[in-house]
């Protein structure tokens, strides 16, 4: 049994060496979100308190009514528990989205060190050394546990330093960390089941998306769906209110169970093989494959289809709570009065929520467009650009075929998003409302996706090594979207995010200039990157 884990220590060191930059960046990014929330909220509330001449706690209580009754916030962030305490508010603002981001960090970490290594054949070298069958997943599992513990620790320290009860701070940190570990353990199962890293990572991302959506619907409708989601369990702990402890046990049990299943599955398969077998393929190619575009389509279609499904699912989830958001407000006399004084009607609330979720879906769709845009880089790194470019295929044509798919994917994703929102809302209310308006608002966000992906195309044209910098552009956009207002970034910084310029309301016609400008930026970056690509070394 012990030899089954032989040399795990060395493998851990290898993972830390290989991943020292990526994992560090992820941890810094996540910890930044956790650090910035208390700092900015303290600043915001004390400024407001001074203006009103009250204590910050009073301000917090005022805001708690507004924030807690916003269905949109609940759908995005989590249950509105203990919002009149600083801790509760921090936990709410850090929110479900951060749980999902930590999940993403774990899933990608697992993917990098399991399937990707096997696909490259490097895992074979490692396994040939006297390394146990479980050493590999134990090593990456331990690294993931350590990364999540670090997040938990940082949360505890930051919240305690803010003056919160250390025990409660630790509970919230543990909620974040344990949730990350659940996703890591689930990812370890998928990498055993699927033969391709991409498919395994996709399946793990789907688990995160489902977990997020379940709790979104559950939190808004308060129907218990949240209890089927690891994020829901973690948020149910409610460390700064009426704390419950059973979710900790559930999280720990889920981690142990998933890791156990992964350990068992390892023995049922060969190195390099999946549990899902590969069938033989055709002996000759269909004519549709035999062009640069045909190849690009063949290579990207599965991934793109999964993105479409994921986006449809996510959008339908939000669409299904759309009517709830309206009644949420209308049911509450006091809220309606407050809003009417502010000049907002139920429709405005609905539109505000739509704007928010369309932007959030656009952000997620942006990740899909970026992934598509990164495909040529992957091909080049794998040495599969070389044989095609050694044929009579120009570089423009080869790269253009892949990028055409990325360009088209953006509006397709957004149309699917718009349609799914409207259809889900229609299925619940029995009437289709404002289809054109919602679709238009969804499509208006497309140029922002082009602009972000365009950064990647430019970098790729420069050198394949720089291409991943596109995720930095994506991270900035995400940060501005999630936290830009909260941390009171100056307008100049906020405007860096292309998504901010196309936060169109359904039916609104504002911001045609932004659409034109962002489209122009997108086209220019794509074209510029392609021109640079024709001038650099390949291989």
């Amino acid at each position: 049994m012990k030899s089954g884990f032989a040399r795990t220590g060395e493998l851990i060191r290898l993972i830390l060496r290989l991943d020292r930059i990526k994992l560090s960046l992820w941890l810094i990014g996540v910890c930044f979100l956790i650090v910035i929330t208390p700092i900015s909220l303290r600043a915001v509330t004390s400024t407001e308190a001074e203006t009103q001449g009250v204590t910050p706690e009073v301000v917090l209580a005022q805001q708690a009514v507004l924030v807690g009754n916003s269905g949109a916030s609940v759908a995005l962030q989590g249950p509105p528990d203990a919002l009149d305490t600083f801790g509760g508010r921090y936990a709410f603002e850090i929110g479900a989205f951060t749980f999902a981001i930590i999940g993403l960090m774990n899933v990608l970490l697992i993917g990098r060190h399991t399937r990707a290594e096997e696909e490259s054949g490097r895992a074979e070298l490692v396994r040939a050394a006297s390394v146990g069958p479980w050493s590999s997943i134990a090593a990456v599992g331990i690294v993931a546990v350590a990364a999540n513990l670090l997040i938990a620790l940082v949360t505890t320290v930051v919240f305690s330093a803010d003056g919160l009860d250390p025990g409660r701070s630790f509970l919230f940190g543990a909620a974040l960390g344990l949730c990350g570990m659940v996703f890591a353990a689930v990812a370890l199962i998928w990498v055993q089941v699927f033969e391709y890293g991409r498919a395994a990572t996709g399946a793990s991302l789907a688990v995160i998306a489902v977990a997020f959506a379940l709790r979104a619907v559950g939190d808004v409708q308060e129907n218990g769906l949240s209890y089927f989601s690891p994020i829901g369990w973690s948020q149910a702990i409610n460390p700064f209110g009426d704390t419950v402890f059973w979710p900790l046990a559930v999280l720990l049990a889920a981690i142990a169970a998933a890791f156990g299943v992964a350990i068992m599955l390892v023995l049922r398969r060969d190195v390099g093989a999946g549990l899902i077998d590969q069938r033989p393929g055709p002996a000759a190619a269909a004519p549709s494959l035999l062009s640069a575009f045909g190849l690009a389509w063949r290579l990207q279609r599965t991934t793109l289809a999964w993105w479409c499904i994921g986006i449809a699912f996510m959008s339908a989830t939000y669409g299904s709570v759309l009517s709830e958001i309206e009644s949420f407000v209308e049911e509450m006399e006091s809220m309606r009065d407050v809003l009417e004084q502010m000049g907002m009607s139920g429709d405005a609330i609905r539109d505000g929520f739509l704007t928010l979720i369309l932007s959030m879906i656009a952000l997620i769709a942006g990740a899909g467009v970026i992934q598509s845009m990164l495909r040529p880089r992957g091909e080049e790194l794998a040495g599969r650009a070389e044989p095609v470019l050694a044929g009579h295929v120009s570089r423009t044509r080869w790269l253009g075929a892949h990028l055409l798919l990325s360009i088209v994917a953006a509006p397709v994703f957004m149309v699917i998003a718009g349609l799914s929102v409207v259809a889900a809302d229609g299925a619940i209310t029995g009437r289709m409302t404002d289809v054109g308006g919602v679709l238009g608002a969804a499509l208006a966000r497309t140029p922002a996706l082009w602009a972000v992906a365009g950064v990647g195309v430019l970098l790729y044209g420069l050198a394949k090594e720089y291409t991943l910098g596109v995720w930095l552009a994506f991270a900035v956009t995400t940060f501005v979207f999630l936290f830009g207002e909260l941390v009171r970034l100056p307008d100049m910084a906020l405007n860096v995010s292309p998504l901010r310029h196309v936060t169109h309301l359904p039916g609104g016609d504002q911001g045609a200039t932004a659409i034109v400008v962002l489209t122009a930026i997108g086209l220019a970056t794509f074209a510029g990157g392609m021109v640079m690509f024709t001038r650099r070394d390949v291989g």
Partner: protein
Amino acid sequence: MNSNNQSVIHIENLHKAFGATRALDGLNLHVERGEVMGFLGPNGSGKSTTIRVLMGLLRQDAGHVELLGGDPWADAVELHRRIAYVPGDVNLWPGLSGGETIDLLGRLGSGLDQKRRTEMIERFDLDPTKKGRTYSKGNRQKVALVAALAGNAELFVLDEPTAGLDPLMESVFQDVVREQLDDGKTVLLSSHILAEVESLCDRVTIIRDGRTVETGTLTELRHLTRTSIRATTATPIATIADHEGVTDFLGHNHHRASFSVANDSLGPVLSALSELGIEALESQPPTLEELFMRHYAIDSPSGSSEIDLPSGGASNEAAAGL
């Protein structure tokens, strides 16, 4: 572009650096129409880099490169219709079957003759229905070879094409290449398999540290090297040791010795031996191995003859860039 030009590949003083690493440092290579040029050199000496420059994948820093009368960088797309290329590292799409890959590479490359495709698949004993990721190294190589050899290329650029093939397939490969030669095709063959080079190549070019160190026919190259002699003479043989062109002299006794002779001194040394009264004489021409060892192993100041990946410098950098 003049396809009747006798010179198919003409490289003069080619330079290419990757950052601080000088991969090519004044390389020359000339390939005539209708010949098989062996392209040899230790690992990391710049063979693959040269080939990648020829295929328009890398841009040279300096020097003159002409391919089928055109510029391999500027005219890449047009030239590639006439060239079949087998890379040193064959990487297939994991989800595409071998048959699909052959059709794709053939179609996007120098064309595909359906009859030859069937014939090649049969001769190389390849199962075209398997997915790319399930092929072994040898089978991946076969996929690339079938795609290249089933086309209508006039020039074949083959970068260690038989690495990973079994001896039976190796001989199939040699047969197919000979048939292509009979059709007037030209081949640039980078290889470490000396028997293959000896049996296929008209001429060879040996490079080291990014420079051409030797080029010529195998016979010419043999002339530049030494023959080992083992002789027994009637009178004492020791005087031979001081003869011009004799090295590694090892006297077994007064009358018997073995030594090696520079080929241009062979005549005088034999005369001297016969004056001593030859009783027995064995001579051994230099083997190809010895020929290459001489060129490969000499003190390499930059240590470039150390073990390296067969793919050469460029893709190593790519891997490091990950």
